[in-house]
């Protein structure tokens, strides 16, 4: 299937295909590959809008993944195509960013002064504190914020959610080695969000 055809299907879903819509509808109706593309686009759109049903057939996702590299949303000239996917992606990214901030709050709580006003942390530039921090990204200039060099200090966190996220990180570290792995524990950190 050509990029142009994919673009037409995407435009049809956006209700932005003024001419030739009947032609594309017929193509989707009559051709299995076009129909599969139509279904994939709907599934991706629903995923990005967060409106997927609770139960879906993940083999569909397998097919999405197999084809996603060839459908980057760019046309032949490198220009971003107007697709059903692009619009909700903004909200998706914002939601993810908020979730990451919640995780980072876990460690940031150790950075400020303690209640007694005594600084617990060292803020050092680059690799001055090689005892407690080494940079796996060798050669990169980094700003390093080091919690107490010898022990992890838990200062009273600002809120309950921050504390809960800190617990989740600790839980995952242990879960990685505990018993049989039916799931991949760190997947929840990489895609973290509080659902309810």
């Amino acid at each position: 299937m050509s990029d142009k055809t994919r673009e037409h299907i995407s435009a049809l879903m956006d209700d932005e295909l003024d001419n030739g819509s009947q032609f594309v509808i017929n193509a989707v109706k009559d051709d299995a590959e076009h129909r599969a593309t139509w279904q994939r686009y709907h599934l991706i759109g629903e995923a990005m809008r967060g409106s997927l049903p609770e139960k879906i057939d993940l083999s569909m996702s397998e097919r999405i993944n197999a084809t996603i590299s060839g459908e980057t949303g760019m046309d032949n000239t490198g220009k971003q195509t107007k697709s059903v996917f692009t619009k909700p992606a903004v909200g998706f990214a914002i939601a993810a960013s908020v979730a990451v901030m919640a995780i980072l709050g876990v460690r940031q709580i150790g950075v400020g002064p303690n209640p007694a006003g005594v600084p617990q942390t060292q803020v050092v530039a680059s690799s001055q504190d090689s005892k407690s921090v080494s940079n796996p990204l060798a050669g990169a200039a980094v700003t390093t914020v080091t919690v107490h060099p010898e022990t992890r200090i838990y200062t009273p966190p600002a809120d309950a959610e921050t504390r809960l996220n800190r617990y989740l990180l600790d839980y995952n570290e242990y879960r990685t080695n505990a018993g049989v792995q039916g799931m991949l524990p760190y997947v929840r950190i990489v895609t973290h969000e509080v659902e309810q």
Partner: protein
Amino acid sequence: MSELSLMKWNSSPGSNSPSPWAVYVLLLCLPFPVQAEETSSRATQLINQMSRASKELNYDGIFVYRRGNRIDTLRLIHKNDEQGEKERMLSLTGPAREVIRDGESVICIFPDNQAVMVERGHPKKLLAAQLPEPVETIADHYTFSIAGKDRVAGRDAWVINIVPKDDYRFGYQLWIDEQFSLLMKSELKDGSGWPIEQILFTKLDILDEIPDKLLKPAISGKDYTWYSSTVDAKVQAVSDRQWKVTSMPAGFSMSQHETRGVAKSGMPVEHMVYSDGLAMVSVFVEKIETRPETLKSASRIGGVNTYAIYADGYQITAVGEVPQKTVRLFAGSVLQSR
């Protein structure tokens, strides 16, 4: 229905002999328990092979992760050589977050916040120095069976069912690669069989070697803020207060107990880890002067449930890949042991 109950149903009152009908039914049923036992044994064998393969092999795969109505695509790269295991998981959708682990540290990279978190000092818990305990030890609380065969990512796979024998645990359905024994697909299921979480590999390459460059982060780290913490083993053993869970489902036992942050300026947090060999529950006890205003008793992150209680200046929180009622039971039964 068990064979014994069939015999009781069909026996005449006062008679010890089963009716001919019961004998007939019993004979019909006889092969099935034998088959079930064989399939259970084969299922546990496959699961043990999977645990081993996931640690010993070099592989590079793409998988889809679904929980509720959210779906993400991630890449997992795993290397094992004479220097030990190293693993990198990165998100291919949304922010390009990464987690890179080896025997000494866990590095979490959040490009959307230009931040990196480095956790050190728990070599034993970061990546396995030892294999997980054999699955046979947890057979008292779960039923293992082979559901059949399927294909995932173009590869043949065994489908294994793990069904809990009570409603304090979740079940699993695992798709294990027939040739290399790696986990290809997994579903975490609630008591009704509903898939709470799913992962599905859409591509998985088993490799002789993994180039080191594949385990390096995509970001340069320039201008990033690094948050690092190191736990000193000396401060873990002693605490002025000890806590214990007094009621938990059968089969769970404490596997770890540590106290952190006992330095002069820090607030101690007790962390108790309980496992039945498959499910794991962490219980945290932390002294907090006043009840947090935003404290929610129950919450859920994918297949992980949490339950928090505030009492007498302490917050007790149970976290686990188990049903809500189980974390509630753990959190609600915590008492001071002295």
